């Protein structure tokens, strides 16, 4: 149980959108144990704070890759970190996407929710459909990269289009409602705002997918990552330990309760 982060140096920084950037971090000396898709690290910006950030790619060379959306002081400081900056990391924490025995994969992401799902894409030889939504075309993550993933059928949709946008406009539930898939073979992975995940799950259940074929990534305030701060409770779950990825049968009653 350590509170002391392991130093990592930013070796690359890619601007993804107007408020999001992807950092590649290389250990300064020691490195953390390997991460699995869906797990997260606690990233520390010197003097500003520490927040949970999912692993957004697993290159396998000991580097950590994270995509960070600047929403407040800590995420802003991490987002702004230029190559050379030393950042602290602790982890890996939490549960991973369950991919054992998966046949067809259906991935639905909203906004920054695509980041923790990215390591899943293209790393499986399975048939994969990705539906990714964002508020505007400018908020869509990894646009160029997604186009190059030959094993993934990608559907992009935005809440509000603009004159350069020729794709879909609307919520992710719309393509989901008409998407052809085999409920007997499909596993769905959902990550995004809670209402989005609830609506998507409802649509999928309505189309015959069994609840235990749906996995969601849940979010609560987290300040330790090691189950001692108590902030990440969601009913019976301590999300830093029992989450963020959980099966829908567990998540369903929790998501439906008000202010849980």
């Amino acid at each position: 149980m350590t509170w002391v982060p392991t130093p990592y140096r930013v070796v690359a920084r890619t601007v993804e959108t107007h408020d999001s950037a992807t950092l590649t971090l290389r250990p300064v000396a020691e490195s953390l144990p390997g991460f699995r898709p869906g797990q997260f690290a606690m990233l520390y910006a010197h003097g500003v704070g520490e927040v949970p950030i999912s692993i957004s790619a697993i290159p396998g060379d000991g580097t950590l890759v994270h995509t960070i959306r600047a929403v407040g002081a800590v995420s802003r400081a991490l987002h702004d970190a230029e190559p050379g900056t030393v950042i602290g990391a602790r982890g890996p924490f939490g549960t991973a996407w369950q991919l054992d025995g998966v046949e067809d994969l259906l991935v639905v992401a909203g906004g920054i929710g695509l980041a923790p799902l990215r390591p899943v894409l293209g790393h499986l030889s399975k048939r994969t459909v990705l539906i990714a939504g964002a508020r505007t075309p400018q908020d869509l993550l990894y646009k160029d990269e997604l186009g190059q993933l030959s094993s993934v059928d990608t559907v992009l949709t935005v809440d509000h289009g603009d004159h350069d946008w020729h794709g879909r406009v609307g919520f992710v539930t719309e393509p989901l409602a008409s998407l052809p898939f085999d409920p007997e073979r499909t596993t769905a992975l959902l990550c995004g705002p809670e209402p989005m995940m609830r609506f998507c799950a409802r649509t999928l259940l309505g189309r015959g997918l069994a609840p235990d074929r749906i996995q969601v990534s849940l979010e609560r305030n987290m300040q330790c990552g090691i189950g001692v701060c108590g902030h990440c409770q969601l009913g019976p779950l301590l999300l830093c330990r029992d989450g963020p990825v959980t099966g829908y049968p567990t998540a369903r009653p929790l998501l439906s309760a008000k202010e849980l």
Partner: protein
Amino acid sequence: MASQVFDLSGLDALIGVLRADGRVVVGPLLRDDAITLAEVKSATDLPSGWGVEIGPGHYRVRRRTDTAVFGHSAGPQSWKRFLHPPHRTLMSSDSSGFHAVQDDTPDYAFLGVRACDLAAIGKLRQITGGRAPFVVAAQCTEPGEVCFCTSMGCGPAAGPGYDIALTERIDEQGQRFLATSGTAEGAAVLARVPAREAVPEDIALAEQDVDAAARNMGRAMPELDLRDLLAAGRDSAHWEAVAERCLTCGNCTMVCPTCFCVSVEDHTDLDGNAERAQRWASCFEIDFSYLHGGAVRTSGAARYRQWMTHKLGTWHDQFGTSGCVGCGRCIAWCPAGIDITEEAAVLSQTMKHGGDRR
């Protein structure tokens, strides 16, 4: 284990031995009209002849007719203060890197730990870890008006985890303590305290006193599966009713010997050095559940539900045991006198009558 008997001078000698070994002995002390916990240097520091009168939102020290030193129930503080201090620095960061902080926790000996608090120490350490203190338990022979450790299976007899257990008795033969060791370390310490060998009658009397205490609990939890009750009661209208009375002040969580939640904050000085530190937090704080854009649990009802559900229900899911030991502190120190046993009882009643708000 072998037991022995000593009087107040023996207790003083015990404190002396513990101190001689370099331990900081913490025990009950009368201060600001309450029995608080602080360093005790000799038996004369103990609140001899002081008892308490406790009720929901009510606590008064009172004079006892005898000179008992452990004749009071749980006070405003718990051992949590020492095992899991209200403020603690976690690490520091400067231009040379990230650094662990030196653990300067003294080697504690806790004197007069009641059965409920002994159980609480176990539950707390299960989560927070840290070095084990030396524990001198005081078995409870006189529970207070808000105690319900029997319902929670945590007392009044001291459960496992003590190094030495004491049972205080005052009768025609005077004031004395039956001391039993629970660990080899406890036995070694006791061996250095002048005492006489316990006779079967000493042990029988102590058992009799503790048994009587079990029948004299001020309160009880309703006898049903609390974990099921709270899971089923998630949408009960009862939470709104409690919220009308609940101040959301967080006192209950702060005084609870097992509530472990902390918030982590960053502090920086002018020279660019930084520190991360934790402080006791409470699920009654609105920011406690803050996610970018706003808190999850804003209503008083949701926050009270979180506290009680966690204590009595989801603690089982998370840590395999209840979070409540029945010490009654949350009842006494809630300014509004909200009583967790009564709320549980009322909740089960409303559930029976179909009080589901959906």
